């Protein structure tokens, strides 16, 4: 924690034998991993110092991605267990094999972790037994309680699920290094105290009494700390809920900023042009409506959606309101695309030559799809359209005929209506679809 600035931060590495302590340490110190591992094993024979040190680092040093998550959480809301760890290449040091980030104590590693812990414990016990066989006098009175305390702590720590653990770690490191120092000091004091108590007392009877007293004291402490603990827990929950709300609010704010506020600013600048204002307002209304009421289930490959999108496009280019009413819906097919294009042409004509709102009505049933595009313009005589004007003749009537549909145009003084009709897939197309 007090490493010079140039050093990579101390993280447990993803490239590991047991828990990534050695390789992490190696990356941190800039030493070869191999020597560190050998040194750690050798140190283990020196009264178990290496093992203790290893366990200590295992508990206290975060994994690379956990560290990254903490870094991220100090910047913004941390909801990202899958966040790519920016520090991983650093802490992995010489090993460029950037493995997929595994969360701290994740399920997969946790399985092996348990077995490894158990194995380590058994090896430890075996070592003691062998040493006794060889006649070495070991301070069993010290070792057994120490092992018990460590085991108990490990079990207690494992009981917490990952999020709670993350939350607790987040809380304890509220003031960064200070929190860890306090936690470590407290833990060391407890361990030392119990050890002194157990090994210092001569008889088991005294130990028993002392134990009773300790339990009483612990009970008292729990009684005192319980309300604090509960409050702590509730704060944590509130904070988490608040963070979720905050994220949602931020999303809404971002959306409103990108859309509504921008449009309002534009409207203020263009206030003199009524048509621009109407167009902006309509486009914004449509966008906001889509955002608020959009049907999550409906895919974008639906005919009604396509027609609405086309209507929106026409509305944007010509500044005429285009109202779409749709009844029923169907999945888009190739022939439907022709229908959409013909409808688009009809809407464009209506917006260009008609007046007022353009009404579009789409009705889809088993029999087929029908689209009606109506405007309130002065009307025109469909027969009088010059031959060279391809808009109506080609883009609407011709296109519908080519795809097995019909188009009819009726025009009068009160407006023009284009009726497009596309029967449901005929036998030809069914066969076509039937082929793989």
């Amino acid at each position, binding site marked *: 924690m007090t490493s010079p600035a140039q050093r990579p931060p101390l993280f447990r590495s993803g490239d590991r034998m047991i828990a990534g302590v050695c390789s992490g340490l190696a990356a941190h110190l800039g030493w070869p991993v191999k020597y560190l591992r050998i040194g750690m094993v050798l140190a283990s024979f020196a009264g178990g110092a290496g093992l203790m040190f290893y366990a200590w680092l295992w508990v206290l040093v975060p994994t690379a991605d956990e560290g990254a998550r903490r870094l991220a959480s100090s910047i913004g809301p941390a909801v990202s267990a899958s966040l790519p760890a920016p520090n991983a290449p650093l802490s992995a040091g010489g090993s460029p094999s950037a493995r997929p980030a595994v969360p701290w104590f994740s399920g997969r590693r946790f399985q092996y972790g348990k077995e490894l812990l158990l194995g380590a414990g058994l090896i430890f016990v075996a070592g003691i037994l062998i040493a006794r066989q060889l006649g070495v006098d070991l301070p069993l009175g010290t070792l057994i309680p120490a092992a018990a305390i460590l085991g108990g702590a490990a079990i207690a720590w494992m009981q917490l699920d990952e999020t709670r653990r993350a939350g607790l770690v987040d809380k304890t490191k509220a003031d960064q290094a200070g929190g860890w120092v306090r936690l470590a000091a407290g833990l060391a004091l407890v361990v030392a105290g119990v050890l002194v108590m157990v090994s210092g007392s001569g008889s088991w009877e005294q130990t028993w009494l002392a134990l009773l007293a300790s339990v009483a004291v612990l009970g008292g402490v729990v009684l005192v700390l319980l309300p604090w603990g509960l409050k702590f827990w509730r704060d944590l929950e509130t904070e988490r809920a608040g963070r979720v709300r905050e994220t949602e609010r931020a999303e809404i704010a971002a959306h409103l900023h990108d859309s509504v506020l921008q449009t309002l600013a534009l409207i203020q600048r263009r206030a003199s042009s009524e048509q621009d204002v109407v167009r902006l307002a309509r486009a914004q209304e449509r966008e906001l*409506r889509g955002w608020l*009421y959009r049907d999550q289930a409906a895919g974008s490959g639906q005919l009604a959606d396509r027609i609405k999108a086309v209507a929106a496009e026409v509305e944007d280019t010509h500044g005429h*309101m285009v*109202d779409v*009413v*749709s*009844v*029923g819906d169907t999945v888009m097919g190739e022939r439907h695309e022709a229908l959409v294009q013909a409808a688009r042409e009809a809407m464009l004509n209506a917006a260009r030559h008609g007046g007022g*709102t353009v*009404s579009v*009505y789409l*009705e889809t*049933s088993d029999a087929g799809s029908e689209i*009606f595009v*109506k405007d309130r313009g002065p009307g025109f005589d469909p027969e009088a359209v010059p031959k060279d004007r391809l808009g109506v003749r080609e883009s609407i009537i011709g296109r519908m005929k080519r795809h097995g549909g019909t188009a009819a145009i009726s025009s009068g003084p*009160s407006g023009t*209506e284009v009726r497009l009709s596309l029967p449901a897939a005929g036998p030809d197309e069914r066969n076509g679809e039937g082929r793989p």
Partner: protein
Amino acid sequence: MNAAGTAGDGGNQRRIRVVVVDDHAIFRSGLKADLDSRIDIVGEAGSVEEALRVIAEQRPEVVLLDVHLPGGLGGGGREVISKSAHMLGSTSFLALSVSDAAEDVVAVIRAGARGYVTKTISGPGISDAVIRVADGDAVFSPRLAGFVLDAFGTSPSDIADDELDRLSARELEVMRLIARGYSYKEVAKELFISIKTVETHVSAVLRKLQLSSRHELTKWAAERRLL
């Protein structure tokens, strides 16, 4: 604003007493400016409680009612209608909404509103709608007609069906034309019937929409969380 023009109105026209209920004051004043001289605004309200009080005091012929209103139990315009249900004989409700979401619209219609128009409707359009509702007719926007067709289906009824559960062939035709953007007058012309007949058909459809417990309609409504 429109009160000044009464004297020159010829006197042969009765003025329709209207209460405007909308929580946006800007929209209320815009609406007042838009409504023509045949209409007399006798009260305004901005919340459910206020609306209930003003409607009970003034007993207007028509209430122009925003679907989304603060106050009350959170039911908005629907709540106003259902709590004024005893007055539905003498007072008609015309729902106004910026939202064209089916759940909002169909909920107020089923509560007893005589029609529904969007807030983007033109000034003459809203005046005509108020007068139509005051005459006891129903006002359908293209979108409401679309909802009706969606809910009742687009095939005409058989004789065996309960009459509330399906639209007749004629009613379907009328609904289709309204959905296509036709005015009542244009519908009448297109179908070679009188406007009065169109109004009768539309009122019949409204009644079906309000009273039908048809399986498909309830399912349709349930899917859209209307019930």
